[in-house]
């Protein structure tokens, strides 16, 4: 174990962090759309949202990644492994986030919305000023949790050749014959990233004035 | 029966941190009598009752149940020793307790709740435990609800099952901590009736309650607790009809205006 190894793993950590940030962000955007569909008045939209959530939560991420990695070239889209990895991670997390957000909306105390209606807010105002912020407050802890889940799940992108922490550790382990040190150090990097996400989530919670947990 | 002492408290002190919740309580509860403990919120009524059940450990003083020291004993030199856990369990066997929140076990039927102690503690055979539990449910008027789960019973029914559960262990003393405070007025009556019957049968009872009517008509002895101390005690008629104690008069007015004004005769 030398500093070179630590440096290489740190580079892997940047890749892992980048993948996680992108997929969480894009996943949130898609998640909002899917959540809206699941709460919509049109039955086909609700059904589609339900199947979407059920499928991407029900299939192991590894299988999803393998599927996408081989499916894209077959339908004429030739992309590097990173893109396949990002697509897989994003689809997976978007389904979880959609479900979390839906729970947030469903659990808003009806009285809060009624109070808004009584002071004369219209439907859009109710959504933007009352329901969405409350849903976000209710779901923030779960969303932070989802960030940590995706951070760990992203280790599977190593199977499609992306040089994240895990892939780097694998390479180093086979070149140095020191799997224990390499994978243990990889674990430490994941723990560090976890701490950062948790801290960030707490900071965000304070910003929104959420009760401390 | 009446006359000898069922529970004795001598100089009992209980603290949470440096907050003294009981400041040297002296109290005698006689056999066969109903003693009601009243007082403003936060005065320490629940704490006192929980100390008598040894759910809370008192910090000083001594509590005796039927003469036997509860939890701690005093050496001749005045130092305290903690009694072994089996001894605590033996003394506690004399006591049954009924809680404000019922505390029925949700995964057992009414019958299961009542039979649990008979099976596990008294080690009775299934048949006998069943019969005895059934008899106690009948006594509180719930024989036909024996196979219901707590979630399927009303609050009043749950509390009556809880009373049956305590009675099944054949305690010499029953403790009640605001047994009707989480019940609707119409359900309060059915629980108070069960308690009244129990009192008429000569059960020794120590009852924390805000039901002044019950205290006035059923209790032989009323204890008014205020700011962690016993401010006033005596026969129900004396305590209620002559509220010469200023805090007592204030308490009766603020907490219990309806019933109390009748009792006060004004």
């Amino acid at each position, binding site marked *: 174990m030398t500093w070179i190894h630590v440096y290489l793993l740190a580079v892997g950590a940047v890749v892992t962090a980048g993948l996680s940030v992108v997929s969480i962000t894009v996943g949130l955007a898609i998640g909002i759309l899917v959540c809206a569909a699941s709460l919509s008045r049109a039955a086909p939209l609700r059904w589609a949202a339900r199947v979407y959530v059920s499928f991407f939560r029900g299939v192991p991420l590894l*299988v999803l990644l393998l599927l996408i990695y081989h499916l894209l070239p077959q339908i004429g889209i030739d992309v590097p492994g990173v893109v396949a990895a990002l697509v897989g991670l994003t689809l997976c997390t978007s389904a979880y986030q959609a479900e979390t957000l839906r729970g947030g909306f469903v659990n808003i105390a009806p009285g809060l919305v009624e109070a808004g209606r009584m002071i004369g807010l219209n439907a859009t105002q109710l959504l933007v000023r009352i329901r969405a912020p409350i849903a976000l407050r209710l779901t923030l802890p779960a969303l932070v949790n989802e960030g940590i889940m995706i951070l760990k799940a992203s280790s599977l992108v190593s199977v499609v050749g992306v040089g994240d922490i895990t892939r780097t550790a694998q390479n180093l382990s086979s070149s140095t014959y020191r799997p224990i040190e390499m994978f243990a150090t990889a674990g430490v990097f994941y723990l560090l990233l976890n701490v950062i996400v948790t801290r960030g989530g707490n900071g965000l919670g304070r910003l929104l004035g959420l009760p401390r947990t | 029966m009446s006359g000898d002492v069922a529970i004795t408290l001598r100089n009992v002190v209980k603290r949470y941190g440096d907050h003294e919740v009981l400041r040297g309580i002296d109290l005698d509860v006689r056999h066969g009598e109903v003693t009601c403990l009243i007082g403003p919120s936060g005065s320490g009524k629940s704490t006192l009752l929980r100390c008598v059940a040894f759910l809370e450990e008192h910090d000083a003083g001594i509590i005796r149940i039927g003469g036997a020291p509860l939890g701690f004993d005093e050496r001749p030199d005045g130092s305290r020793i903690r009694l072994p856990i089996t001894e605590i369990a033996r003394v506690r066997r004399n006591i049954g307790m009924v809680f404000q929140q019922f505390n029925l076990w949700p995964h057992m039927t009414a019958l299961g709740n009542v039979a649990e102690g008979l099976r596990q503690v008294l080690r009775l055979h299934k048949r006998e435990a069943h019969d005895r539990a059934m008899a106690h449910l009948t006594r509180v008027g719930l024989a036909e609800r024996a196979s219901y789960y707590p979630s399927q019973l009303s609050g009043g029914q749950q509390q009556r099952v809880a009373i049956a559960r305590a009675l099944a*262990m054949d305690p010499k003393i029953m403790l009640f901590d605001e047994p009707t405070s989480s019940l609707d007025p119409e359900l309060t009556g059915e629980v108070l009736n069960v308690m009244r019957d129990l009192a008429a049968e000569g059960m020794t009872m120590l009852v924390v309650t805000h039901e002044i009517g019950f205290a006035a008509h059923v209790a032989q002895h009323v204890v008014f607790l205020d700011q962690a101390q016993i401010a006033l005690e005596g026969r129900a008629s004396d305590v209620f009809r002559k509220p010469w104690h200023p805090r007592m008069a204030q308490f009766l007015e603020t907490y219990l205006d309806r019933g109390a004004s009748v009792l006060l005769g004004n």
Partner: protein
Amino acid sequence: MMDLDALSDAFPEILDGLWLTIFMWLAGSALAPLLGLAVALARRFGPAWVDRPLWAIVEVIRGTPFLVQMFLLYYGGPFIGLDLEPTTAGLLGLTIYGAAYFSEILRGGLIAVPKGHVEAALCVGLNRMQIIRRILLPEMTLLVLPASVNMFIVLLKETAVLSIVTVPELTMAVTGFGSANFAFTQAALVLALCYWSLTELSGLVGRALERRLDRFRIA
């Protein structure tokens, strides 16, 4: 579409893979909660000094990817005299991983049992062991059911990761068949549908179970 001959040739292998997946899942789902319960009970009722180390171990396991843990166990194990068959290593890894999560779920359940229910048991005269066995464990089970069903589904999905350390379970069997026949996409699709059915099915069973236990819930 799919090469039917190749499929029928590979069918026994795929079926073996499916059975192994189900075996690993069920065995892991039986062992992980047991180990998790031991950890939860030790942390709640054991001597004070066991709490911190157990907390640290649980947090490390919950904070790192299952894949990295499996690599550590499978490739690192031999260096510390732990030379395990892939399947054995897989089951051990799955159990330890699941146990960390279950210990937290069960500990939460133990804490959530109302204090008054324990006090009522003390007043009736049950001893410590009886209270744990007769009151705390059953009430806890009720409280943790939804989270546990979730966790069982997570474990099912994590069994796919075991293919990376050469456990011949479903994912390995199907992808092996696929890559041998240049039909990887179809194979992966079939695989996805297999897991999807399994997870949906366990979700259904879990929800039905929850409904059945509803009558034990007060308020």
